[in-house]
């Protein structure tokens, strides 16, 4: 099933994907990697950052580079669940009600500024995220495969926002921040043609089937017992940390392992090493823990980093 040539092949196509994305979003290789790992792990991604650093660009370029349908939903306070899921309308010709699919029925959905909409719409989206299907009245509609939601939220603006409850944050596999680019990249970014213009010329690197297959293969990566132990130790440590009010959940641990597999797969390995787990920990757990002081994910990241620096890795 998995041999060296194949590994090289996969590695090459993933490398190509990474390079293509980097050509648009310069100097953000780690962020891009995390986005790809999330895609390989079949999870959803939460990007938390200030406006104008390329949140939307990241989502768009990912969608562009894989042969997938892509929709963008700008969340506003008056957005209704039907606006994203779809509506049932009366078809006069067929004299019957008919479901018209909303923008959610895409492979990659960019949920822009998710914390600006009302909780009702938020929960409609998040339900679809975890179930990967939508129930409307008595019918169930399966969402397309792969299905990935990339949600962005703005940590600074509080006016008129509805912060996501913890249970809903938990449904995102990873959260990332983008941050300001380094000066040299920022200079390039303003001098070059805009990223949207570059994106116009991009051709998909991976097909929809490629993604599904890779997700499937990544799920079969071997995990050594000692690493499961290590991962659970990290999870346990988040629950016992003095600054943490609520630690990571079991679902968090599940996502963690899945992400670790995806990361190993991305690195071209058929087994997980401690680095996969250690490196991913902040991205996986930062949004899952509640601090005793404030609810800032960036601060939680530091605590997770502190935890993994204290825990001995399996040798």
């Amino acid at each position: 099933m998995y041999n060296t040539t194949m590994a090289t092949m996969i590695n090459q196509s993933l490398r190509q994907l990474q390079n293509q994305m980097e050509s648009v979003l310069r100097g953000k290789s780690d962020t891009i990697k995390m986005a790809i790992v999330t895609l390989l792990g079949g999870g959803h991604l939460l990007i938390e950052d200030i406006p104008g650093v390329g949140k939307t660009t990241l989502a768009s370029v990912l969608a562009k580079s894989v042969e997938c349908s892509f929709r963008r939903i700008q969340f506003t306070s008056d957005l209704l669940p039907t606006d994203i899921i779809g509506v049932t309308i009366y078809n006069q010709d067929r004299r019957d009600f008919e479901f018209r699919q909303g923008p959610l029925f895409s492979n990659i959905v960019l949920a822009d500024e998710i914390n600006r909409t009302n909780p009702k719409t938020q929960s409609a989206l998040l339900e679809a995220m975890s179930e990967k299907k939508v129930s409307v009245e008595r019918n169930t509609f399966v969402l397309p495969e792969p299905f990935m939601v990339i949600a962005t939220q703005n940590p600074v603006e509080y006016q008129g926002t509805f912060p996501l409850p913890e249970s809903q944050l938990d449904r995102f596999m990873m959260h990332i921040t983008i941050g300001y680019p380094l000066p040299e990249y920022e200079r390039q970014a303003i001098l070059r043609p805009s990223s949207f213009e570059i994106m116009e010329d991009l051709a998909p690197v991976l097909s929809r089937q490629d993604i599904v297959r890779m997700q499937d293969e990544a799920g079969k990566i071997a995990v050594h017992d000692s690493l499961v132990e290590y991962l659970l130790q990290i999870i346990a440590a988040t629950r016992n940390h003095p600054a943490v009010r609520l630690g990571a959940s079991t679902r968090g641990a599940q996502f963690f392992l899945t992400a670790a597999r995806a990361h190993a797969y991305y690195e071209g390995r058929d087994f997980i090493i401690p680095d996969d787990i250690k490196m991913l920990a902040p991205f996986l757990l930062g949004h899952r823990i509640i601090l005793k002081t404030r609810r800032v994910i960036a601060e939680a990241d530091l605590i997770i980093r502190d935890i993994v620096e204290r825990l001995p890795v399996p040798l």
Partner: protein
Amino acid sequence: MPILYKILTALLALTGCASLAITGEVSPIMSLSAVALVPGYYRFFKGEKHAPTAVIGILAILELFIFLFDAVTVSGDVFIAVAHLTIAFQALKSFDLKEPWDHLQVYFVSLLQLIIASELTTSLAFGIVFVVFMVMLVTAMVFSHFLKEGHIDKALVSRPVYVISVLTLCMTTVFFIALPRLTHRFIGKSHTRGIRTSGFSEQMEFGDLGSIKLDPTVILRVEMDAGASGPLYWRGRTLEVFDGIRWKNELGAKNRIQKTGDEFLLGSYNRGQVVEQQIDLEPLDSDVIFGLSMIRSIKTDAYFLTVDTAGNLAQPGKVSRRSRYTVYSDISKEEEGTPQPIYLQVPFGIERISELARDITRPYQTSKRTSNKNDARSDDQSGDQSDEQKAQAIAEYLRSNYAYTLTVSPAPKGISPLEDFLFRSKRGYCEHYSSAMVLMLRSVGIPARIVTGFLGGDRNAYGGYLIVRQRDAHSWVEALINGKWKRYDPTPSVAPAPVESYSLFWDSVKTQWARYVVGFRSSDQRAIFVHLTRQFITGFGLFRPDDLSVNGSYTVRYSVLLVIVALILLLTMLFIAWQKRQRKRSGARPWAITASYLKVRKALKRSGLSMTPSTTSAGIMEQAGHFSFNILLSDYLSDYNRIRFGKKSVDEAFLNQEHELIREIGRKQKKDAGK
């Protein structure tokens, strides 16, 4: 730090102190500091901060002063004082465990405690403590080694502990058998105190034997043929002079017995007539050699033995030492003797006793003989018959008219214990009976003396040997009749208390321990080697087996022991070989790969990289990315990860990689140092 490691340290400290405690030589008051171990390790387990350095320092100085004081006054013995000091040190250290080094100190002091304890005791309990200690120490050392590397994995530790423990035990056994024995202790004076016995020293007082009549301490263990019939009188020492209060041995002159071969010959004997007794004598506070009378020959490792005119045997310098010897006694014979004034000595003021003696013996009075006690030298033969009758009459009189008791109330003032026994209370124990009889015999002109020793013993079915205890201590009478010393026992026989079988079983275990471990001697070694040589030679058909006769009856047992040791060694070797093959076959070497990785980590740490328990291979590459050998390192790390967490197996190439890498790191380190 894993809790198991903490527990091990605490257990080792406790075992060390316990080993001293079981010797019974340390003073409880001076060892009170051991109590502090409890709060000390409790705090340690709780992870509380160690005590401030200043406090520890002051206490340490205080300890030193207490030690000096102890050595000079309380114990008066530096050796014991050091034992007390180690206990205090352990207690203090339990509050001050911060570095791995502190743990090693605890191990070291525990080991010291065991060494001290080994000098103070030879009990079986110590043997058990030693084995437990050794396994724990090995575990702790392996743990500390892995801890130093920053990681502990149970699976990783258990195997080395297992292998090292077994190997150490085997090595210990081999060394034990092979090392030359020291006849003398090598640390100063002997600290093993002998069992306090009464009545076997130069003198005996009333109550000496009575007071130990309930003491089950084992004195002798005897292996002998069941051939000897009748009660077994283990003759110890004779006492001749009575001053009204105590008996004394005043024969003075002791002669050395000539050693011929390995045998001290006291007189000619016929091998078929004598009773052979192999005797294990516990350490006593006396140098007496016990045996059935009359002893013709003794085989022992001792360099010389002495004998006095009454046939009392002693091994000078044996006090407080365990000894083992074989006695050949001709029990049908009686010692010949000549009457001497000392055997007729009586103290002043025993007229009442003399009167009684004359009354008892009047029916056997011959016309020729009078009760003139100065007439002892008379060679009149016709009196002999009556002498024997007289002696029997006295013994019979005592046996039937007096009650045996263990609780004798002290005699009223002004009355000697003996008169009190004979005329007032009429109750007493063996010393009363035998003293009364000797004095009465002497009153009627028959030379007599007291003999102290043991009577009887319990046969232990588990070991097929006889146990003689402190409570079997006895005294009886020897009277010189017809030129021969005849034995009389005027004490009424008392039914012995039954002994539980489990205690007999335990005693047989202790006997084996005493015989084969504590009492293992050069002669035993010789026997093993001679036996081995013989086996070797006969194995090649060079000699017939009876060309070489082995001196020593333990050869068979030792060859069994040897076979067991050889089997253990063989099994260990087979086990190791099997494991190696298993590993080769399955390709799984869980600890070899980790060991290699730890080695590389250690080398990198030495060359200046920061290496914490949470450092991963990526963390290493981050720091070492600019090294000249970074590609080699990166290859090594990815191989390590593949083997450790993936499905690859350790191969030659990987190990070569490791060697090369270590070399490169060393080179870099040298270069850095040069700069």
